Protein backbone atom coordinates (compact mmCIF):
# COMPACT_ATOMS: atom_id res chain seq x y z
CA UNK A 1 0.00 0.00 0.00
CA UNK A 2 1.40 3.35 -1.08
CA UNK A 3 0.86 6.34 1.16
CA UNK A 4 1.48 9.98 0.43
CA UNK A 5 0.49 13.27 2.07
CA UNK A 6 -1.71 14.45 -0.77
CA UNK A 7 -3.07 12.70 -3.84
CA UNK A 8 -4.43 14.81 -6.68
CA UNK A 9 -6.66 13.05 -9.23
CA UNK A 10 -6.41 14.74 -12.62
CA UNK A 11 -3.50 16.64 -14.16
CA UNK A 12 -5.34 19.50 -15.83
CA UNK A 13 -5.19 23.20 -14.89
CA UNK A 14 -6.79 22.67 -11.46
CA UNK A 15 -4.80 19.57 -10.55
CA UNK A 16 -1.44 21.00 -11.59
CA UNK A 17 -2.05 24.22 -9.62
CA UNK A 18 -3.17 22.31 -6.53
CA UNK A 19 -0.23 19.93 -6.62
CA UNK A 20 2.31 22.71 -7.12
CA UNK A 21 1.01 24.67 -4.14
CA UNK A 22 0.92 21.63 -1.86
CA UNK A 23 4.43 20.60 -2.84
CA UNK A 24 5.77 24.12 -2.31
CA UNK A 25 4.36 24.04 1.20
CA UNK A 26 6.48 20.98 1.86
CA UNK A 27 4.03 18.09 1.56
CA UNK A 28 4.56 15.02 -0.62
CA UNK A 29 2.21 15.04 -3.61
CA UNK A 30 1.27 12.41 -6.14
CA UNK A 31 -0.79 13.36 -9.19
CA UNK A 32 -2.66 10.53 -10.88
CA UNK A 33 -3.90 10.95 -14.43
CA UNK A 34 -5.55 8.52 -16.78
CA UNK A 35 -3.89 9.80 -19.93
CA UNK A 36 -0.40 9.18 -21.20
CA UNK A 37 0.70 12.75 -20.48
CA UNK A 38 -0.24 15.39 -17.91
CA UNK A 39 -2.08 18.51 -19.06
CA UNK A 40 -5.67 17.36 -19.33
CA UNK A 41 -7.83 18.57 -22.20
CA UNK A 42 -7.01 22.26 -21.82
CA UNK A 43 -3.23 22.02 -21.53
CA UNK A 44 -3.10 19.00 -23.84
CA UNK A 45 0.51 18.15 -24.64
CA UNK A 46 1.43 17.02 -28.14
CA UNK A 47 1.98 13.25 -28.10
CA UNK A 48 5.53 12.05 -27.55
CA UNK A 49 7.34 11.91 -30.87
CA UNK A 50 5.14 14.57 -32.43
CA UNK A 51 6.64 18.04 -32.31
CA UNK A 52 5.00 21.34 -33.04
CA UNK A 53 7.28 23.09 -35.52
CA UNK A 54 6.04 26.60 -34.94
CA UNK A 55 4.61 28.68 -32.18
CA UNK A 56 1.24 28.92 -33.89
CA UNK A 57 -1.64 30.12 -31.78
CA UNK A 58 -3.09 26.62 -31.54
CA UNK A 59 -0.19 25.66 -29.26
CA UNK A 60 -0.52 28.56 -26.85
CA UNK A 61 -2.29 26.53 -24.17
CA UNK A 62 -0.06 23.49 -24.67
CA UNK A 63 3.03 25.64 -24.20
CA UNK A 64 1.72 27.28 -21.04
CA UNK A 65 0.76 23.82 -19.77
CA UNK A 66 4.24 22.55 -20.51
CA UNK A 67 5.89 25.21 -18.39
CA UNK A 68 3.38 24.73 -15.54
CA UNK A 69 4.08 20.98 -15.54
CA UNK A 70 7.82 21.69 -15.39
CA UNK A 71 7.27 24.10 -12.49
CA UNK A 72 5.24 21.46 -10.67
CA UNK A 73 7.96 18.87 -11.14
CA UNK A 74 10.58 21.34 -9.90
CA UNK A 75 8.45 21.89 -6.81
CA UNK A 76 8.66 18.15 -6.16
CA UNK A 77 5.32 16.94 -7.55
CA UNK A 78 5.30 13.33 -8.72
CA UNK A 79 3.14 12.62 -11.76
CA UNK A 80 1.90 9.15 -12.54
CA UNK A 81 0.20 8.92 -15.91
CA UNK A 82 -1.87 6.12 -17.42
CA UNK A 83 -3.14 5.60 -13.89
CA UNK A 84 -6.89 5.15 -13.66
CA UNK A 85 -8.52 5.76 -10.28
CA UNK A 86 -11.37 3.25 -10.56
CA UNK A 87 -12.53 3.00 -7.00
CA UNK A 88 -12.62 4.78 -3.68
CA UNK A 89 -13.58 3.28 -0.37
CA UNK A 90 -15.25 4.67 2.71
CA UNK A 91 -11.95 5.21 4.53
CA UNK A 92 -10.65 7.35 1.64
CA UNK A 93 -8.49 4.61 0.12
CA UNK A 94 -8.20 4.81 -3.66
CA UNK A 95 -8.00 1.85 -6.02
CA UNK A 96 -5.71 2.63 -8.92
CA UNK A 97 -5.14 0.67 -12.09
CA UNK A 98 -1.91 1.25 -13.98
CA UNK A 99 0.53 -0.81 -16.01
CA UNK A 100 -1.70 -3.86 -15.97
CA UNK A 101 -2.04 -4.07 -12.22
CA UNK A 102 -4.14 -2.55 -9.46
CA UNK A 103 -2.99 -1.11 -6.19
CA UNK A 104 -4.45 0.83 -3.31
CA UNK A 105 -3.24 4.24 -2.22
CA UNK A 106 -4.18 5.90 1.05
CA UNK A 107 -3.71 9.66 0.82
CA UNK A 108 -3.63 11.95 3.82
CA UNK A 109 -5.66 14.49 1.86
CA UNK A 110 -7.37 14.01 -1.47
CA UNK A 111 -7.86 16.67 -4.15
CA UNK A 112 -10.27 15.77 -6.94
CA UNK A 113 -9.58 17.60 -10.19
CA UNK A 114 -11.35 15.18 -12.51
CA UNK A 115 -12.52 17.68 -15.12
CA UNK A 116 -15.69 17.42 -17.14
CA UNK A 117 -17.40 15.60 -19.98
CA UNK A 118 -19.09 16.96 -23.05
CA UNK A 119 -22.83 17.39 -22.57
CA UNK A 120 -24.71 15.00 -24.83
CA UNK A 121 -27.38 16.48 -27.04
CA UNK A 122 -28.99 13.66 -29.00
CA UNK A 123 -30.53 13.82 -32.46
CA UNK A 124 -31.25 11.15 -35.07
CA UNK A 125 -27.96 9.81 -36.44
CA UNK A 126 -25.71 11.14 -33.66
CA UNK A 127 -24.03 7.75 -33.28
CA UNK A 128 -22.79 7.69 -36.89
CA UNK A 129 -19.01 7.63 -37.36
CA UNK A 130 -18.13 11.17 -38.39
CA UNK A 131 -20.18 12.77 -35.62
CA UNK A 132 -17.90 13.70 -32.74
CA UNK A 133 -17.54 16.27 -30.02
CA UNK A 134 -15.59 19.44 -30.67
CA UNK A 135 -13.34 18.26 -27.83
CA UNK A 136 -12.47 15.14 -29.80
CA UNK A 137 -11.62 17.21 -32.87
CA UNK A 138 -9.44 19.49 -30.76
CA UNK A 139 -7.66 16.53 -29.14
CA UNK A 140 -6.89 15.03 -32.55
CA UNK A 141 -5.53 18.32 -33.81
CA UNK A 142 -3.56 19.52 -30.78
CA UNK A 143 -2.33 16.12 -29.66
CA UNK A 144 -1.53 14.51 -32.99
CA UNK A 145 -1.85 17.03 -35.80
CA UNK A 146 -4.71 15.10 -37.37
CA UNK A 147 -7.79 16.69 -38.88
CA UNK A 148 -11.08 15.03 -37.93
CA UNK A 149 -12.41 15.25 -41.49
CA UNK A 150 -12.27 17.02 -44.81
CA UNK A 151 -15.60 18.82 -44.78
CA UNK A 152 -16.59 19.80 -41.29
CA UNK A 153 -19.64 21.44 -39.77
CA UNK A 154 -19.47 22.71 -36.21
CA UNK A 155 -22.74 22.97 -34.30
CA UNK A 156 -23.63 23.69 -30.71
CA UNK A 157 -23.39 26.56 -28.32
CA UNK A 158 -20.82 28.62 -26.50
CA UNK A 159 -17.38 30.06 -27.15
CA UNK A 160 -15.50 26.74 -27.09
CA UNK A 161 -16.86 25.64 -30.45
CA UNK A 162 -15.79 28.91 -32.03
CA UNK A 163 -12.29 28.48 -30.60
CA UNK A 164 -12.01 24.91 -31.89
CA UNK A 165 -13.38 25.94 -35.29
CA UNK A 166 -10.78 28.70 -35.53
CA UNK A 167 -8.00 26.24 -34.63
CA UNK A 168 -9.22 23.75 -37.23
CA UNK A 169 -9.41 26.49 -39.87
CA UNK A 170 -5.87 27.61 -39.01
CA UNK A 171 -4.63 24.07 -39.46
CA UNK A 172 -6.14 23.96 -42.93
CA UNK A 173 -9.39 22.09 -42.32
CA UNK A 174 -12.32 22.92 -44.54
CA UNK A 175 -15.18 24.13 -42.38
CA UNK A 176 -18.52 24.63 -44.04
CA UNK A 177 -19.80 26.63 -41.10
CA UNK A 178 -20.24 27.15 -37.39
CA UNK A 179 -23.79 27.06 -36.03
CA UNK A 180 -24.47 28.80 -32.72
CA UNK A 181 -27.86 27.77 -31.36
CA UNK A 182 -28.37 31.02 -29.46
CA UNK A 183 -29.83 33.86 -31.50
CA UNK A 184 -27.63 36.86 -32.13
CA UNK A 185 -30.23 39.22 -30.65
CA UNK A 186 -30.26 37.24 -27.43
CA UNK A 187 -26.46 37.35 -27.24
CA UNK A 188 -26.44 41.09 -27.78
CA UNK A 189 -29.00 41.56 -25.01
CA UNK A 190 -26.83 39.51 -22.61
CA UNK A 191 -23.90 41.73 -23.56
CA UNK A 192 -23.97 43.87 -20.40
CA UNK A 193 -23.37 40.76 -18.29
CA UNK A 194 -19.93 40.51 -19.86
CA UNK A 195 -19.00 44.16 -19.27
CA UNK A 196 -15.36 44.41 -18.29
CA UNK A 197 -14.30 41.08 -19.78
CA UNK A 198 -12.28 42.85 -22.44
CA UNK A 199 -9.53 40.26 -22.70
CA UNK A 200 -12.05 37.56 -23.40
CA UNK A 201 -14.05 39.61 -25.85
CA UNK A 202 -10.80 40.37 -27.67
CA UNK A 203 -10.01 36.66 -27.80
CA UNK A 204 -13.47 35.97 -29.19
CA UNK A 205 -12.96 38.66 -31.80
CA UNK A 206 -9.69 37.05 -32.85
CA UNK A 207 -11.40 33.70 -33.38
CA UNK A 208 -14.14 35.39 -35.33
CA UNK A 209 -11.54 37.11 -37.54
CA UNK A 210 -9.77 33.81 -38.14
CA UNK A 211 -13.06 32.25 -39.23
CA UNK A 212 -13.91 35.21 -41.43
CA UNK A 213 -10.57 35.19 -43.20
CA UNK A 214 -11.03 31.45 -43.82
CA UNK A 215 -14.50 32.19 -45.21
CA UNK A 216 -16.23 30.14 -42.53
CA UNK A 217 -19.74 31.50 -41.93
CA UNK A 218 -20.91 31.81 -38.32
CA UNK A 219 -24.69 31.40 -38.12
CA UNK A 220 -26.82 32.17 -35.05
CA UNK A 221 -30.09 30.62 -33.94
CA UNK A 222 -29.56 27.44 -35.93
CA UNK A 223 -28.41 23.92 -35.16
CA UNK A 224 -28.16 20.37 -36.45
CA UNK A 225 -31.38 18.36 -36.19
CA UNK A 226 -30.41 15.14 -37.98
CA UNK A 227 -27.26 13.35 -39.16
CA UNK A 228 -27.55 11.27 -42.30
CA UNK A 229 -25.37 8.51 -43.66
CA UNK A 230 -25.24 4.88 -44.69
CA UNK A 231 -22.76 3.52 -42.16
CA UNK A 232 -20.83 6.77 -41.98
CA UNK A 233 -21.87 10.41 -41.91
CA UNK A 234 -22.49 11.96 -45.32
CA UNK A 235 -24.79 14.90 -44.59
CA UNK A 236 -26.58 16.77 -41.84
CA UNK A 237 -29.90 18.56 -41.74
CA UNK A 238 -29.93 21.87 -39.90
CA UNK A 239 -32.84 24.07 -38.86
CA UNK A 240 -33.58 27.40 -37.27
CA UNK A 241 -34.45 27.33 -33.58
CA UNK A 242 -37.03 29.29 -31.64
CA UNK A 243 -36.33 30.72 -28.16
CA UNK A 244 -37.01 27.35 -26.54
CA UNK A 245 -34.68 25.66 -29.07
CA UNK A 246 -37.49 23.86 -30.87
CA UNK A 247 -36.70 23.46 -34.57
CA UNK A 248 -38.86 25.74 -36.70
CA UNK A 249 -40.61 23.72 -39.45
CA UNK A 250 -39.83 24.85 -42.98
CA UNK A 251 -36.35 26.15 -42.14
CA UNK A 252 -34.52 22.85 -42.71
CA UNK A 253 -31.46 22.73 -44.95
CA UNK A 254 -29.23 19.81 -45.89
CA UNK A 255 -25.45 20.18 -45.91
CA UNK A 256 -23.00 17.63 -47.33
CA UNK A 257 -20.23 16.98 -44.78
CA UNK A 258 -18.08 14.07 -43.70
CA UNK A 259 -17.66 15.35 -40.15
CA UNK A 260 -19.96 17.03 -37.67
CA UNK A 261 -18.47 18.40 -34.49
CA UNK A 262 -20.91 19.18 -31.69
CA UNK A 263 -20.30 21.25 -28.59
CA UNK A 264 -23.15 21.86 -26.15
CA UNK A 265 -21.16 22.71 -23.06
CA UNK A 266 -19.68 20.57 -20.35
CA UNK A 267 -20.92 18.45 -17.47
CA UNK A 268 -18.79 18.27 -14.30
CA UNK A 269 -17.24 14.87 -13.63
CA UNK A 270 -18.36 14.25 -10.05
CA UNK A 271 -18.23 10.48 -10.16
CA UNK A 272 -15.32 9.95 -7.80
CA UNK A 273 -16.73 12.57 -5.43
CA UNK A 274 -20.08 10.79 -5.42
CA UNK A 275 -18.40 7.45 -4.81
CA UNK A 276 -16.75 9.02 -1.77
CA UNK A 277 -20.11 10.22 -0.49
CA UNK A 278 -19.52 13.94 -1.10
CA UNK A 279 -22.78 15.87 -1.16
CA UNK A 280 -24.01 16.82 -4.63
CA UNK A 281 -26.61 19.39 -5.65
CA UNK A 282 -28.22 20.31 -8.96
CA UNK A 283 -27.21 23.75 -10.23
CA UNK A 284 -27.71 24.26 -13.98
CA UNK A 285 -25.71 27.51 -13.92
CA UNK A 286 -22.67 25.46 -12.85
CA UNK A 287 -23.24 22.65 -15.35
CA UNK A 288 -25.72 20.33 -13.60
CA UNK A 289 -24.85 18.00 -10.74
CA UNK A 290 -22.13 19.73 -8.73
CA UNK A 291 -20.51 19.14 -5.36
CA UNK A 292 -20.98 21.38 -2.35
CA UNK A 293 -17.74 22.92 -1.15
CA UNK A 294 -16.57 25.38 1.45
CA UNK A 295 -14.21 28.37 1.31
CA UNK A 296 -11.20 26.07 1.14
CA UNK A 297 -12.71 24.08 -1.79
CA UNK A 298 -13.28 21.23 0.64
CA UNK A 299 -16.26 18.99 -0.10
CA UNK A 300 -18.80 17.88 2.49
CA UNK A 301 -16.26 15.16 3.34
CA UNK A 302 -13.45 16.41 5.48
CA UNK A 303 -10.06 16.09 3.79
CA UNK A 304 -11.56 15.70 0.30
CA UNK A 305 -11.21 18.80 -1.89
CA UNK A 306 -12.86 19.34 -5.28
CA UNK A 307 -11.51 21.81 -7.82
CA UNK A 308 -11.79 22.84 -11.45
CA UNK A 309 -14.56 21.83 -13.82
CA UNK A 310 -15.38 18.91 -11.50
CA UNK A 311 -16.57 21.51 -8.98
CA UNK A 312 -18.74 23.34 -11.52
CA UNK A 313 -18.05 24.56 -15.05
CA UNK A 314 -16.08 27.79 -14.75
CA UNK A 315 -13.12 27.58 -17.15
CA UNK A 316 -9.38 27.11 -16.84
CA UNK A 317 -8.60 30.33 -14.97
CA UNK A 318 -11.09 29.55 -12.21
CA UNK A 319 -9.81 25.98 -12.13
CA UNK A 320 -6.28 27.19 -11.53
CA UNK A 321 -7.38 29.54 -8.73
CA UNK A 322 -9.47 26.83 -7.07
CA UNK A 323 -6.54 24.45 -7.38
CA UNK A 324 -4.29 26.96 -5.66
CA UNK A 325 -6.76 27.45 -2.81
CA UNK A 326 -7.26 23.71 -2.28
CA UNK A 327 -3.55 22.96 -2.55
CA UNK A 328 -2.60 25.51 0.09
CA UNK A 329 -5.54 24.49 2.33
CA UNK A 330 -4.69 20.79 2.13
CA UNK A 331 -1.09 21.56 3.11
CA UNK A 332 -2.31 23.72 6.02
CA UNK A 333 -4.50 20.87 7.26
CA UNK A 334 -1.37 18.72 7.32
CA UNK A 335 0.45 21.36 9.34
CA UNK A 336 2.64 22.45 6.42
CA UNK A 337 3.25 26.00 5.27
CA UNK A 338 3.22 29.31 7.12
CA UNK A 339 -0.38 30.00 8.19
CA UNK A 340 -0.14 33.79 7.77
CA UNK A 341 1.42 33.72 4.30
CA UNK A 342 -0.90 30.91 3.21
CA UNK A 343 -3.90 32.87 4.41
CA UNK A 344 -2.79 35.88 2.36
CA UNK A 345 -2.36 33.80 -0.77
CA UNK A 346 -5.72 32.10 -0.32
CA UNK A 347 -7.40 35.49 0.14
CA UNK A 348 -5.78 36.83 -3.04
CA UNK A 349 -6.88 33.79 -5.05
CA UNK A 350 -10.41 34.06 -3.66
CA UNK A 351 -10.75 37.69 -4.76
CA UNK A 352 -9.84 36.74 -8.33
CA UNK A 353 -12.00 33.63 -8.20
CA UNK A 354 -15.14 35.55 -7.29
CA UNK A 355 -15.16 37.50 -10.55
CA UNK A 356 -14.25 34.36 -12.54
CA UNK A 357 -17.21 32.49 -11.08
CA UNK A 358 -19.52 35.41 -11.79
CA UNK A 359 -18.34 35.44 -15.40
CA UNK A 360 -18.76 31.65 -15.68
CA UNK A 361 -22.32 31.85 -14.37
CA UNK A 362 -23.21 34.47 -17.00
CA UNK A 363 -21.61 32.37 -19.71
CA UNK A 364 -23.31 29.14 -18.60
CA UNK A 365 -26.68 30.84 -18.40
CA UNK A 366 -26.33 32.62 -21.73
CA UNK A 367 -25.37 29.44 -23.57
CA UNK A 368 -27.54 26.99 -21.59
CA UNK A 369 -29.14 24.20 -23.62
CA UNK A 370 -32.91 24.83 -23.80
CA UNK A 371 -35.55 22.10 -23.35
CA UNK A 372 -36.98 22.34 -26.88
CA UNK A 373 -33.92 20.45 -28.15
CA UNK A 374 -35.38 17.27 -26.61
CA UNK A 375 -38.00 17.25 -29.37
CA UNK A 376 -35.25 16.11 -31.73
CA UNK A 377 -35.44 12.68 -30.09
CA UNK A 378 -37.43 10.48 -32.47
CA UNK A 379 -38.46 7.03 -31.22
CA UNK A 380 -35.45 5.39 -32.88
CA UNK A 381 -32.87 7.92 -31.63
CA UNK A 382 -30.33 6.30 -29.32
CA UNK A 383 -30.17 7.86 -25.86
CA UNK A 384 -27.74 5.40 -24.21
CA UNK A 385 -24.94 4.86 -26.71
CA UNK A 386 -23.41 1.90 -24.85
CA UNK A 387 -26.54 -0.19 -24.35
CA UNK A 388 -28.14 1.07 -27.58
CA UNK A 389 -31.36 2.09 -25.88
CA UNK A 390 -33.62 4.34 -27.90
CA UNK A 391 -35.80 7.24 -26.83
CA UNK A 392 -38.81 5.20 -28.02
CA UNK A 393 -37.95 2.28 -25.75
CA UNK A 394 -37.51 4.70 -22.89
CA UNK A 395 -40.78 6.52 -23.54
CA UNK A 396 -42.97 3.48 -24.20
CA UNK A 397 -41.46 0.85 -21.93
CA UNK A 398 -40.83 2.98 -18.86
CA UNK A 399 -43.12 1.79 -16.07
CA UNK A 400 -44.92 4.77 -14.54
CA UNK A 401 -43.31 4.25 -11.13
CA UNK A 402 -39.86 4.95 -12.53
CA UNK A 403 -39.21 8.56 -11.77
CA UNK A 404 -35.56 8.60 -10.71
CA UNK A 405 -32.40 8.09 -12.73
CA UNK A 406 -31.35 5.21 -10.54
CA UNK A 407 -34.60 3.32 -11.04
CA UNK A 408 -34.43 3.99 -14.78
CA UNK A 409 -30.94 2.60 -14.84
CA UNK A 410 -31.90 -0.58 -13.00
CA UNK A 411 -34.98 -1.33 -15.08
CA UNK A 412 -34.29 0.14 -18.52
CA UNK A 413 -30.49 -0.31 -18.36
CA UNK A 414 -29.66 3.25 -19.46
CA UNK A 415 -26.20 4.10 -18.15
CA UNK A 416 -25.36 0.44 -17.51
CA UNK A 417 -22.77 0.09 -20.27
CA UNK A 418 -19.07 0.70 -20.65
CA UNK A 419 -19.13 4.45 -20.06
CA UNK A 420 -21.08 3.89 -16.82
CA UNK A 421 -23.45 6.72 -17.59
CA UNK A 422 -20.90 9.47 -18.30
CA UNK A 423 -22.42 10.19 -21.66
CA UNK A 424 -26.15 9.77 -21.00
CA UNK A 425 -26.75 10.89 -17.42
CA UNK A 426 -27.62 14.52 -18.17
CA UNK A 427 -29.57 13.58 -21.29
CA UNK A 428 -31.63 10.87 -19.58
CA UNK A 429 -32.23 13.21 -16.64
CA UNK A 430 -33.81 15.76 -18.99
CA UNK A 431 -35.88 13.13 -20.79
CA UNK A 432 -37.02 11.45 -17.59
CA UNK A 433 -37.98 14.75 -16.01
CA UNK A 434 -40.07 15.59 -19.07
CA UNK A 435 -41.75 12.17 -19.29
CA UNK A 436 -42.42 11.86 -15.57
CA UNK A 437 -43.47 15.48 -15.18
CA UNK A 438 -40.81 16.24 -12.60
CA UNK A 439 -38.05 18.79 -12.27
CA UNK A 440 -34.53 17.74 -13.33
CA UNK A 441 -33.39 18.38 -9.78
CA UNK A 442 -35.89 15.77 -8.59
CA UNK A 443 -34.81 12.81 -10.73
CA UNK A 444 -31.53 12.47 -8.83
CA UNK A 445 -28.47 10.82 -10.32
CA UNK A 446 -27.09 7.43 -11.28
CA UNK A 447 -25.74 5.61 -8.24
CA UNK A 448 -21.99 5.36 -8.72
CA UNK A 449 -20.22 2.10 -7.99
CA UNK A 450 -16.67 0.93 -8.55
CA UNK A 451 -15.15 0.30 -11.01
CA UNK A 452 -15.72 3.78 -12.40
CA UNK A 453 -14.48 2.54 -15.75
CA UNK A 454 -14.07 -1.00 -17.06
CA UNK A 455 -10.82 -2.66 -15.95
CA UNK A 456 -9.53 -6.13 -16.78
CA UNK A 457 -10.61 -8.81 -14.30
CA UNK A 458 -6.98 -9.88 -14.07
CA UNK A 459 -6.08 -6.49 -12.66
CA UNK A 460 -8.29 -7.24 -9.67
CA UNK A 461 -6.86 -10.65 -8.94
CA UNK A 462 -3.89 -9.41 -6.96
CA UNK A 463 -5.89 -6.73 -5.20
CA UNK A 464 -8.10 -8.75 -2.87
CA UNK A 465 -5.58 -8.73 -0.04
CA UNK A 466 -4.82 -5.03 -0.42
CA UNK A 467 -8.43 -3.88 -0.08
CA UNK A 468 -10.00 -2.66 3.13
CA UNK A 469 -12.90 -4.72 4.49
CA UNK A 470 -16.22 -4.11 2.71
CA UNK A 471 -18.32 -1.24 4.11
CA UNK A 472 -21.14 -2.03 6.50
CA UNK A 473 -24.25 -2.27 4.33
CA UNK A 474 -26.43 -0.90 7.13
CA UNK A 475 -24.78 2.49 6.75
CA UNK A 476 -26.40 3.07 3.35
Amino acid sequence: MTSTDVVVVGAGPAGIAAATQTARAGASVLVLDEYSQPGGQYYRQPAEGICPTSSARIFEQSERGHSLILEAKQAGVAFRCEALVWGAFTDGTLAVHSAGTSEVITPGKLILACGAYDRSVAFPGWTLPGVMTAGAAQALLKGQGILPGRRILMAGTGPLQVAVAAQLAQAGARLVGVLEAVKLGRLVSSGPRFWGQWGRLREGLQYWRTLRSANVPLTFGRTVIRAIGDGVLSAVVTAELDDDWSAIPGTEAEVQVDTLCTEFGLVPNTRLARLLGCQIVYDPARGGLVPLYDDAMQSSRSGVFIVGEAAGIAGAKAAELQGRIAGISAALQLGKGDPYQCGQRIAAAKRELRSELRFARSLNETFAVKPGILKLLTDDTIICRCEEITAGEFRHERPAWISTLDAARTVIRVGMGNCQGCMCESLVAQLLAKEAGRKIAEVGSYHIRPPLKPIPVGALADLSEKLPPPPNRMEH
Partner: protein
Amino acid sequence: MEHEPRRVSAFFRRGRPVQIDVDGEPVQAFEGETIAGALLASGRRILRHTPKGSARGVFCGMGACFDCIVEVDGDPGVRSCITPVHQGMKVRTPKPFQRGK
Protein backbone atom coordinates in the same frame (compact mmCIF):
# COMPACT_ATOMS: atom_id res chain seq x y z
CA MET B 1 -12.70 12.90 -50.10
CA GLU B 2 -11.96 9.82 -47.98
CA HIS B 3 -8.37 9.59 -49.11
CA GLU B 4 -7.23 13.18 -48.93
CA PRO B 5 -4.48 13.51 -46.36
CA ARG B 6 -5.73 14.38 -42.90
CA ARG B 7 -2.32 14.76 -41.28
CA VAL B 8 -1.47 18.41 -40.85
CA SER B 9 2.04 19.04 -42.10
CA ALA B 10 2.20 22.78 -41.46
CA PHE B 11 2.84 22.89 -37.71
CA PHE B 12 3.86 19.34 -36.87
CA ARG B 13 6.87 17.12 -37.26
CA ARG B 14 5.80 13.47 -37.20
CA GLY B 15 7.22 10.76 -35.03
CA ARG B 16 8.99 7.78 -36.56
CA PRO B 17 6.88 5.83 -39.06
CA VAL B 18 5.47 2.54 -37.79
CA GLN B 19 3.24 -0.04 -39.38
CA ILE B 20 0.24 -1.52 -37.64
CA ASP B 21 -2.02 -4.36 -38.73
CA VAL B 22 -5.70 -3.52 -38.86
CA ASP B 23 -7.96 -6.50 -39.53
CA GLY B 24 -5.12 -8.07 -41.52
CA GLU B 25 -4.33 -4.98 -43.58
CA PRO B 26 -1.14 -2.97 -43.08
CA VAL B 27 -1.76 0.63 -42.04
CA GLN B 28 0.91 3.32 -41.96
CA ALA B 29 1.07 5.29 -38.75
CA PHE B 30 3.51 7.48 -36.86
CA GLU B 31 4.79 7.17 -33.33
CA GLY B 32 2.80 9.31 -30.93
CA GLU B 33 -0.46 8.87 -32.80
CA THR B 34 -3.34 7.07 -31.16
CA ILE B 35 -4.93 4.08 -32.86
CA ALA B 36 -8.03 6.16 -33.59
CA GLY B 37 -5.90 9.00 -34.97
CA ALA B 38 -3.95 6.68 -37.27
CA LEU B 39 -7.11 4.96 -38.49
CA LEU B 40 -8.86 8.25 -39.11
CA ALA B 41 -5.80 9.55 -40.97
CA SER B 42 -5.89 6.44 -43.17
CA GLY B 43 -9.51 7.17 -44.06
CA ARG B 44 -11.07 4.60 -41.73
CA ARG B 45 -13.90 6.26 -39.91
CA ILE B 46 -15.62 3.10 -38.67
CA LEU B 47 -13.80 1.74 -35.64
CA ARG B 48 -16.23 -0.97 -34.65
CA HIS B 49 -19.74 -2.31 -34.99
CA THR B 50 -21.98 -2.68 -31.96
CA PRO B 51 -23.61 -6.01 -31.09
CA LYS B 52 -26.76 -4.68 -32.77
CA GLY B 53 -24.74 -3.92 -35.89
CA SER B 54 -24.47 -0.14 -35.92
CA ALA B 55 -21.16 1.44 -36.87
CA ARG B 56 -19.26 3.64 -34.43
CA GLY B 57 -16.24 5.88 -34.68
CA VAL B 58 -14.41 8.47 -32.62
CA PHE B 59 -16.93 10.32 -30.46
CA CYS B 60 -15.61 11.90 -27.25
CA GLY B 61 -11.91 11.57 -28.11
CA MET B 62 -10.92 11.54 -24.43
CA GLY B 63 -11.52 8.01 -23.26
CA ALA B 64 -14.90 8.62 -21.64
CA CYS B 65 -17.51 7.23 -24.03
CA PHE B 66 -15.97 3.84 -24.97
CA ASP B 67 -17.47 4.12 -28.46
CA CYS B 68 -14.08 3.61 -30.11
CA ILE B 69 -13.10 0.37 -28.39
CA VAL B 70 -11.12 -2.14 -30.48
CA GLU B 71 -9.17 -5.33 -29.81
CA VAL B 72 -5.44 -4.71 -29.51
CA ASP B 73 -2.92 -7.59 -29.50
CA GLY B 74 -5.65 -9.85 -28.15
CA ASP B 75 -6.98 -7.49 -25.47
CA PRO B 76 -10.60 -6.50 -26.03
CA GLY B 77 -12.16 -3.20 -25.02
CA VAL B 78 -9.14 -0.98 -25.65
CA ARG B 79 -10.02 2.68 -26.14
CA SER B 80 -8.43 3.51 -29.47
CA CYS B 81 -8.70 7.28 -28.92
CA ILE B 82 -6.23 7.30 -26.01
CA THR B 83 -4.02 4.31 -26.84
CA PRO B 84 -0.82 5.10 -28.76
CA VAL B 85 0.26 2.91 -31.70
CA HIS B 86 3.44 0.85 -31.72
CA GLN B 87 5.27 -1.04 -34.46
CA GLY B 88 3.59 -4.33 -35.28
CA MET B 89 0.47 -3.67 -33.20
CA LYS B 90 -2.42 -5.90 -34.21
CA VAL B 91 -5.77 -4.13 -34.16
CA ARG B 92 -9.08 -5.91 -34.70
CA THR B 93 -12.18 -3.81 -35.15
CA PRO B 94 -15.23 -5.52 -33.61
CA LYS B 95 -17.71 -6.71 -36.23
CA PRO B 96 -21.43 -7.34 -35.91
CA PHE B 97 -22.46 -10.92 -35.11
CA GLN B 98 -18.86 -11.97 -34.59
CA ARG B 99 -18.31 -10.68 -31.13
CA GLY B 100 -15.24 -12.11 -29.50
CA LYS B 101 -13.78 -13.64 -32.65
